[in-house]
């Protein structure tokens, strides 16, 4: 083997090493954070914690039950509004995105992806809270939608763009129109990527505090529907974490662990569900 070949092989090995190093570097802080969250949060997770309403700091029977329900409620509302808008926009951009309107929408999505979460909260406050006269879970959902939609639109578009052109052409050649091609061929094919995008967006908005402070507000009691203020995990974590009381700070870590678990479960469940559906659609 010539020197050149040897150098190229060496280069190959080196880059493999570099990439492995990169992965390790990525995993070290992950391990550190997870470790911290689990070690601090696990002691707080108890049946009481999962099923009780919050109690004052001098009582031990408090919990985050309403915050857990509230997060599911608010993120659910966000997904309800945001997934159709985001995925729809993403499909539009992939199918028709070369026109002026398409390019503008894409550009605006990228800009909006950088929106600070607190600005989303301020907008949600003006749009919903001030007009309806009170804080509500819906206001929180609307605020989070501003963060959710751009990210989902971009990731959906990217996932669809990567479907090979030949696949689409084959579909068209078989007589399916552009709409059917997109919905029945391209989208299922790109589903993994689309799903990843949605999951990333869900994970991101589930952990946001600032937009919810002025919209969903918080509640020491159970949420009674989308029209009332509700406790949510990130806000409750925030309020407890900055308090002077050790008992509350403990619960804050428990809440952080709970949030992580919730996102994990959603992630896993979502993927399993679509994997099963994809297998079904492909006739396995």
């Amino acid at each position, binding site marked *: 083997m010539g020197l050149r070949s040897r150098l190229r092989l060496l*280069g*190959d090995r080196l*880059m493999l090493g*570099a*990439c*492995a190093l*990169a992965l390790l570097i*990525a*995993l070290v*802080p992950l391990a*550190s954070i*997870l470790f911290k969250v689990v070690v601090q949060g696990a002691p707080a997770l108890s049946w009481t914690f999962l099923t009780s309403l919050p109690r004052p700091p001098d009582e031990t029977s408090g919990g985050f039950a309403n915050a857990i329900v509230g997060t599911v409620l608010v993120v659910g509302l966000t997904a309800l509004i945001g997934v159709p*808008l985001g995925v729809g*926009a993403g499909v539009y951009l992939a199918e*028709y*995105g*070369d026109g002026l309107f398409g390019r*503008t929408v894409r*550009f605006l*999505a990228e800009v909006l*992806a*950088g*929106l*600070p*979460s*607190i600005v989303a909260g*301020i907008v949600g406050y*003006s749009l919903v809270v001030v007009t309806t006269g009170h804080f509500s879970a819906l206001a929180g959902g609307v605020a989070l939608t*501003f963060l959710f939609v751009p990210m989902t639109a971009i*990731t959906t*578009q*990217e*996932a669809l*763009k990567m479907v*090979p*052109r*030949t*696949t*689409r052409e084959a579909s*068209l050649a078989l007589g399916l*129109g552009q709409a*059917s*091609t997109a*919905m029945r*061929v391209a989208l299922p*094919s*790109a589903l*993994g*990527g689309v799903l990843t995008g949605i999951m*990333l967006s869900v994970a*991101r908005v589930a*952990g946001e505090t*600032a937009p919810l*402070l002025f919209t969903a507000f918080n509640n020491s009691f159970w949420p009674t529907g989308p029209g009332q203020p509700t406790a949510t995990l*990130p806000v409750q974590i*925030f309020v407890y974490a900055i308090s002077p009381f050790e008992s509350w700070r403990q619960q804050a870590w428990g809440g*952080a662990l709970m*949030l*992580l678990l919730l996102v994990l479960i959603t*992630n896993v469940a979502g993927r399993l569900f679509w994997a099963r559906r994809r297998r079904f659609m492909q006739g396995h």
Partner: protein
Amino acid sequence: MERRAAAEGLSSATLPEARRPAAPRGLSDRSFRTILGVLAAALPLMEAVVLVELLQGSLPALRTFGWHFLVGRTWDPVAEVFGALPFIIGTLLTSAVALVLAVPIAIGTAILLVEYATGWVREGLGFLVELLAAIPSIVYGLWGMVVVAPLMRAHVDPFIEASPLGWLPIFGRPLLGLSLLTAGVVLAIMILPIVASVAREALLMVPSEQREAGLALGLTRWETTRRVLLPYARAGVFSAIILGLGRAMGETMAVTMLVGNTPAVTLDLFQPGYSMSAVIANEFSEATTTLHVSSLFGVGLLLFLLSLVVNSMARMLLRGLSHAGTR
């Protein structure tokens, strides 16, 4: 899984308009396009709403300070003098640090997972990386304060200072652990999963024929990656970076807990600084005077505009790369 077809590059995102003679099966193309168009119109609508909101809120401040708002260095709520320069610089610096650190690592991770790992290892590790995205920003802030900042102060900062890098003007005299650098480092960790996941998806979607063609031509795996796959997935990787940048510029909670919250106009990364999102988050709930609140809206507006500028530049860069590159 993917439908295989003859190896061919993907050149554009759109298709030729389909011409169909008979009755459509399922949704007609026209109504499909219209419906999607309406959904997509949500984005400009949201943009407009945000812009209107920010403009309305910042008008008093803009009227009072004019251009000086952009370049003023003093932020004094008592004297009611507000200048946003320290925050602009802080946002740019922390985001730059975050990108410089995160992008190589994220792409390296993505490449490793897609090209070299297989099956459950790939899924499992990829999943772990995505998990980072699920951690709430306040937890990043707390962890950063308790773990990263002391580490930076005790070991990393002095190390950089003593190394050849310490000669650079961006590394001055290390102080406390709370600094632009620390905030940038934790931001990098926060945007890592986004960049890595989206880049990974982009690389995953490259048809295996491309890989096979490269290898058949005698390229090593790395050369195939560098010369065939990355260019092919370029747009997706670019999107990944843009999303990461967006997150970095807009990140609020973690930054306020780590950056030192000092409105200083400085290029020294060891110094405590401030960022646009951070000052809004810190002061908005308590700001009482109209001018103060309005100035915070003004900072929000500037951040919005900055995002526009940065994104435009990135777009132009991408276009430049496309023309200069192989495609």
